């Protein structure tokens, strides 16, 4: 990091030996912890008795149950993609184009699921609508398992993942050049015609990108299928059962490949679509003056969409909070803190380990991310395109697949890491790496190279320029990357389920096993602690470290 920003001279070989060493080091880390596990996974899935063979894949595909799981995965993904995109589009439209009160609140609530573990949705749905759920069992007196299966998964995943599509569409709606719509209006197109001939054609690639994004999230989700899947097997839960339940590694690896291929295809398709939306938005003046719809019916509709959706989200969190503070939620509603004390007694190690490893991962990911961002954005080194591509692969690989790859790759010499804290930190930081790189590249693009030159011209040495100019300017990006890595690490389940060990336990797998045991109260209490912790980090850390220079512009 020290030499990272040591001026633009690093494209001149020999002048900055530290960077000359750091580049191959960064490349080696990326190759070892991203490329190698995927290769290892492929080897397990496509090797039999030391030879290349598609027998494991063929065997997996020949089982009707697995074919059912593939079909289910696609069906679930498609449903979540379509419903989630419609919901996200309505939400984003209401937020950007309709005049209504409470926008800050609706925005905050819509984003809450993005920083919570996805299993939280499953937990609250079980508390409300499960076999002994408050609504189904206690209020309606039903003895039903209707929640478990397709519809339960659809609800849980739409609630968990539509916010990601909402964020994507929000930026798109905001960025769309208003003068295009105005121009259509002056040429005689009434508002409906403007929507049909100008706005929608420009938004289609973005809507498709949102769809594909949601499809990918649904694909990769493990927690909800495990808890709510019931008789509706999907690929991710089948991988888990193959590895943890049957200890059948070739089978698990083959299933993981079946999950990886479409997920990777979807990712690259989404990237392609997102690039196509770029031409629709210009930002700047044109983007600022979208007329706000003031029609009472539109306002009411917008409030119903945003308020209703927010209410549902609030209800999930309220349910978990209630579950954490009552003796037996729905049956004995006496207030108690005993779940919290039980959690703090029994799962303290998981909490401490999660925080410690999360912080370690945040530091590692931020340093590596900014370093790679620097090589990619500011140098012309050989192979930097390949480095960028590989380092961004974790976006395309479902967490379950990365986790399994890690478990397989580092379970034998020369790199026996299973059971260590290192493997967990590596899994955490590699998953977040694409985001820290993106944040670093964005920050570097805002820092014009003339700033380095100005500093040098004013008499600063390379080191002074680094310390006084570049690092202070990169600091917000580094901090944002660290916060993101921490948040994502402590809330992920899929990526760590195969690498946790008795020595190093983590919060999300602990919640999963508590729910497995039926300790819903403790699971809820631990979830509450996790959400509060993440919110405190997201809102507290930026306040502690001070203002972002970009905000004051």
């Amino acid at each position, binding site marked *: 990091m020290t030499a990272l920003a040591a001026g633009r001279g690093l494209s001149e070989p020999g002048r900055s030996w530290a960077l000359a060493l750091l580049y191959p080091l960064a490349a080696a880390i990326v190759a070892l912890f991203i490329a190698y596990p995927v290769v290892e996974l492929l080897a397990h899935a496509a090797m039999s008795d030391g030879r290349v063979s598609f027998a494991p894949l063929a065997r997996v595909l020949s089982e009707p149950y697995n074919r059912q799981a593939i079909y289910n995965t696609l069906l679930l993904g498609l449903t979540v993609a379509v419903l989630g995109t419609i919901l996200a589009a309505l939400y984003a439209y209401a937020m950007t184009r309709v005049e209504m009160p409470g926008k800050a609140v609706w925005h905050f609530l819509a984003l809450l699921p993005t920083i919570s573990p996805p299993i939280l949705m499953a937990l609250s749905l079980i508390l409300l609508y499960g076999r002994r759920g408050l609504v189904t069992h206690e209020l309606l007196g039903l003895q039903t398992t209707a929640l478990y299966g397709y519809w339960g998964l659809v609800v849980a995943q739409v609630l968990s993942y539509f916010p990601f599509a909402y964020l994507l569409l929000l930026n798109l709606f905001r960025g769309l050049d208003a003068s295009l719509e105005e*121009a259509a*209006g*002056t040429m005689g*197109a009434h508002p409906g015609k403007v929507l049909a001939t100008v706005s929608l054609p420009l938004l289609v690639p973005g809507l498709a990108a949102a769809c594909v994004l949601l499809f990918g999230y649904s694909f990769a989700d493990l927690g909800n299928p495990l808890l709510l899947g019931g008789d509706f097997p999907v690929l991710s839960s089948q991988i888990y059962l193959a590895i943890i339940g049957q200890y059948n590694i070739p089978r698990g690896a083959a299933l993981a490949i079946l999950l990886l291929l479409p997920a990777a295809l979807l990712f690259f398709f989404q990237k392609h679509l997102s690039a196509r939306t770029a*031409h629709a938005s210009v930002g700047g003046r044109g983007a600022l003056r979208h007329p706000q719809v003031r029609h009472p019916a539109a306002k009411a509709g917008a409030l119903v969409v945003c308020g209703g959706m927010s209410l549902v989200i609030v209800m999930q969190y309220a349910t978990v909070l209630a579950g954490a503070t009552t003796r037996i939620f729905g049956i004995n509603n006496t207030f108690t803190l005993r779940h919290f004390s039980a959690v703090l007694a029994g799962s303290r190690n998981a909490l401490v380990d999660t925080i410690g490893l999360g912080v370690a991962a945040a530091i590692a990911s931020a340093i590596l991310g900014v370093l790679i961002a620097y090589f990619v954005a500011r140098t012309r080194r050989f192979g930097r395109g390949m480095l960028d591509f590989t380092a961004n692969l974790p976006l395309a690989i479902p967490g379950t697949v990365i986790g399994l790859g890690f478990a397989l790759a580092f379970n034998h010499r020369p790199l026996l890491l299973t059971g260590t804290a290192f493997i967990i930190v590596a899994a955490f930081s590699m998953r977040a790496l694409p985001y820290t790189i993106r944040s670093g590249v964005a920050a570097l693009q805002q820092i014009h190279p003339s700033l380095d030159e100005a500093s040098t011209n004013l008499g600063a040495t390379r080191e002074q320029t680094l310390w006084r100019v570049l690092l202070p300017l990169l600091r917000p990006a580094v901090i944002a990357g660290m916060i993101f890595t921490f948040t994502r690490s402590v809330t992920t389940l899929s990526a760590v389920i195969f690498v946790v060990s008795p020595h190093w336990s983590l919060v999300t797998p602990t919640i999963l096993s508590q729910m497995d045991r039926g300790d819903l109260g403790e699971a809820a209490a631990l979830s509450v602690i996790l959400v509060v912790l993440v919110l405190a980090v997201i809102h507290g850390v930026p306040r502690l470290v001070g203002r972002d220079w970009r905000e004051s512009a």
Partner: protein
Amino acid sequence: MKDSRLDISALDTTAAKTLEIRGLRKTYTMRGGRSVPAVRDFTLSVAPGEFVTLLGPSGCGKTTVLRTLAGLEEPDAGEILLDARAITQLPAHRRRIGLVFQNYALFPHMTVSENVAYSMRIRSAPADATRTEVAAALKAVGLEALGTRLPSQLSGGQQQRVALARALVMKPDLLLFDEPLSNLDAKLRVQVRGELKRLQKQLGTTTIYVTHDQDEAMSLSDRIAVMNAGRVEQVGTPEEIYARPASLFVADFVGQVNALPGRVTGYADGRATIDVLGHRVTLRADRNPPPDVLVLVRPEAVRLSGAGDGAIIAVVEELDYRGDRIEYRIRIGDTMLVAIEAALGRRGRVAPGDRVGVELAEDALHLLPAKMEMPA
């Protein structure tokens, strides 16, 4: 568009319209409830086929007036009449007013032809008529060969012409331009400006043009409305605006000006006698001016001669060579003046510190009451 005589028969407009804007007012409410008046009591009459420019600094409300005409902003008060028909309440898409945007606003997902054909497609015009008129419009702007390109494949100047063709094809009752040349480089700007003027004269469409560039306004307009802080300061021909500005703001905005305090000592037969710079001048004045006045004199009306030749003696403080002209800063007593002389063909050389004679071209002097002095 290169050729000044082009075939515009397909673009013939119906009879040009009269535009009447009365008492237009618009106030924006900012975040936090603060309200900012953008346009206050704007009134303007435009004759059929006339080219009128709204000229003013950024934030003076000129673009708001334009957007209100197009129906993109709703005025708080006021009336807009086209040939005596009120259109104030009409939504934008029913006005038939062509607007050329500053950023052109070309649809990025349509080809040049599709962009130009848009208004006809919206009105479900017959396909062959659409083809003919799109071709004519593209020919009029010299882009007949580029119909199949996407806007992103065109240069800035070409995009600007597509935007113009797109507005012409609608045969608008009124043609509006929102700083259409501001994204072009200086040479191209002058060229396109000439083409624009010729095209407008041939089509005879009533036109409102918004700019902050006084050169552009002078060169294009039949009349100019100079705006400041949401109000019209003066409406007049380019010559009136330049030679007889109604306020110091107008005088200053359309060029350099020397404003000299003077005292009126007499008025008879439409001529005022004024003491300025310790000398007496007589000049035309329509009314009896107040005793304290500002005498405005453009730098090019300040003539320098050898010391002793002129009535007034000045000292040259500074000399600024500008290629086609030379600007002198000269001091007369305590008053600084700017004088401009063509760089070529002048008699004798002047250096800083020289004493020179000064003559004010009396027919180029203009009077303003001293009290009206505007904050800069």
